[in-house]
């Protein structure tokens, strides 16, 4: 049975005459837990942006559920969520309002309005914030007043609350202390929707730290915009790493 969720076919991406992605082919199947390795500037963030449809590749084809992004409706597009490396939170809103933004897609305009007026329910947001070990004293604080680690967890909570099937995360462990890294990693890899108790299963995480690879099934190595290996984690050895670092 074909259980491919996301597929990249011969993807290239040029930016200001620089080839950022070079003929990338990739299939992501349902339930995959993938670690994306590569040096800074190797094209990890661009690859994630192509996967979530934010960047249109210069060449090649991206398919989600066997359809191109243009053919997808809003409901299908919602099945993918991203934790950005630069977080992309709304600085002027509070932490709980930012987490509630993750619910905008499944609610109507009135919800957005209530969220901004601070009169919407934050029950669900608080639940995810607790999961991310955020202290309730910061719930109504503006993003600009939070520490790097707190912001990071707000961004993670905002992604998790969406309950999407596919989670893309770009270096989500930045700014976190070792204890929190373990908690967050478990949360991302389990990626269970707290309401339906269903696991969304598919996760791709870009990271630098090799000691965090344990719970992943697959490892992809990228260098200069080219995928050098796409293997099972258990097959990863020093030679593979030498190719990309």
């Amino acid at each position, binding site marked *: 049975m074909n259980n491919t969720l996301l597929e990249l076919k011969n993807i290239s991406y040029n930016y200001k005459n620089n080839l950022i992605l070079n003929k990338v082919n990739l299939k992501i199947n349902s339930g995959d837990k993938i670690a994306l390795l590569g040096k800074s500037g190797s094209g990890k963030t661009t690859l994630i942006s192509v996967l979530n449809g*934010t960047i249109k590749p210069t060449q090649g084809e991206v398919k989600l559920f066997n359809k191109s992004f243009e053919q997808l409706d*809003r409901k299908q597009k919602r099945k993918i*969520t991203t934790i950005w490396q630069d977080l*992309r939170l709304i600085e002027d*809103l509070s932490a709980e309002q930012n987490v509630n*933004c993750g619910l*905008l*897609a499944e609610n109507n*305009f009135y919800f957005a309005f209530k969220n*901004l007026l601070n009169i919407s329910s934050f029950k669900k947001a608080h639940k995810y914030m607790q999961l991310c070990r955020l202290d309730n004293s910061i719930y109504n604080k503006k993003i600009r007043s939070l520490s790097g680690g707190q912001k990071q967890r707000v961004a993670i909570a905002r992604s998790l609350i969406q309950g999407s099937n596919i989670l893309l995360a770009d270096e989500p462990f930045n700014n976190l202390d070792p204890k929190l890294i373990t908690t967050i990693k478990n949360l991302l890899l389990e990626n269970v929707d707290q309401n339906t108790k269903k696991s969304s299963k598919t996760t791709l995480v870009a990271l630098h730290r090799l000691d965090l690879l344990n719970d992943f099934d697959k490892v992809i190595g990228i260098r200069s915009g080219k995928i050098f290996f796409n293997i099972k984690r258990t097959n990863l050895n020093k030679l593979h790493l030498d190719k990309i670092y």
Partner: protein
Amino acid sequence: MNKLKLNYTSLSFLPILVCIPLGYQLITNIHFGGFKLFQEFLISAFNPKIDNEIIITAINRLNQTFLIGFFSWLVSIIFGAIFGILSSNIFYKIFNIPKFFYSMIRFFLTIIRSIHEVVWGILLMQIYGINFSIGIIAICIPYIAVNSKVFAEQLETINYKSFESINQINAHKFSSLLTLIWNPIINTFKNFGLYRLECSIRSTVILGLFGIGGIGTSIFLSFQTLNFRELWTYLWSLAILIILSGVIYKKIKFNNTNKILSIFFIVVFFITILFSFFYFLFFIFNNNFENFNSVSSLFKSSSNFGLFDFLKLIFDTIILSLLSTGIAISLPPLVIGIFNNNTSKIFIKIFAFLLRLIPIPVILLTLLTFNNPSLSLAALTLGLHNAGITSKLLFTNLDSQDKRNYIAMRSLGISKNTSWLLGLFSQQAKSYLAYCAYRSDIIIRETAIVGVIGGVGLGWQLQESLSSFAWQEVTIVLIAYSSIAIVGELINGKIKNSLT
């Protein structure tokens, strides 16, 4: 020999050179007959007329002024926000609307704001006659366009990455738009609202000078009868109104997490939109359009303009704008830098407040008591009034600036003036010049007021053409005005972008 290098600090002082030709013409135009009048005008400031009758009149007139100013402000800030959203990049990105519409709406708003409210006022008065609504409509038309620019500029500062992340959540487009623009809109309202209210009240006063009513009309009548004591009673009461509105505005804490206040503002927002719409319909259907036939004749009648005369008027208007801008840019840092002590600062602040408070036509008419009408006098008037505004901004920025550099320089034994220049002002020069670039847009539009009163440039021609119902000439003058203002706005926009 080393090449002369201009930096932002020196560029802030260089425009004062306009004072050389300007000063020359002003000195040659002095007539001593009116000095006594001028002296009387100044003395009356300390001895305003205070009796029951005049206080009641002042209160009634202030009431009218405040009502026109407040409603103009409310309508223009709300519709300004709506048009600001419609003319911002973010709206077109979220709804995937072709950029053509974005350019069209921006161009339309640029034309609308290129014409000063006084011009709109005079024009509307010619068509509809004098009534209360004309004041509000005349102010609202350009102010909506001006406010929309302010709101759009703030919305342009929304981080593109925040837009991408909200867009990626795939929410309803209106939800995404609202979430992204909410805070920039509230912040713009908080930061610019009071200033715009002050502008609205000032514009009402100026329109009052042209007969709309309110305190402006009383000021003008007092000036015409040379009753300076009465004039100063009105000016001081206007000062009280402006200061009071500022104090009240600052007292209201626009906290967007305050639910009751937020809901109140939203109710006011929708009521204003509905009320404006129905009032506009009422206005249209309850006015006679007798003079509208004259307007339609603009396509038939022929113009008496000579090309050379017309080009000279355009040239005069441009020169007037440049000279006034030069004074408005350089005078505040020069005066503050030279008289750099606490006592002088208080006097400069009071003087700047008076320059902002006294309507431009009154400053011009006062100066005309001892100087013949000329382009230089008009430029000096406009320059001084705007210097009052730029100096307020400069003071605010300097007062909130980190003073460590200044203290360090003083501790090295460097003189007070040099330390101020290099340790304080030099850090503000860039942003100060950026603000002045914006201010010069307004100066171009304000040339209309001094033109009408002082007999200079296109403003004067507009008044002449309107008085004789020469609608084709009016149209030509308005097109010329618009073109100068649009070109000025483009140039100033480029300068501002290079400075920010």
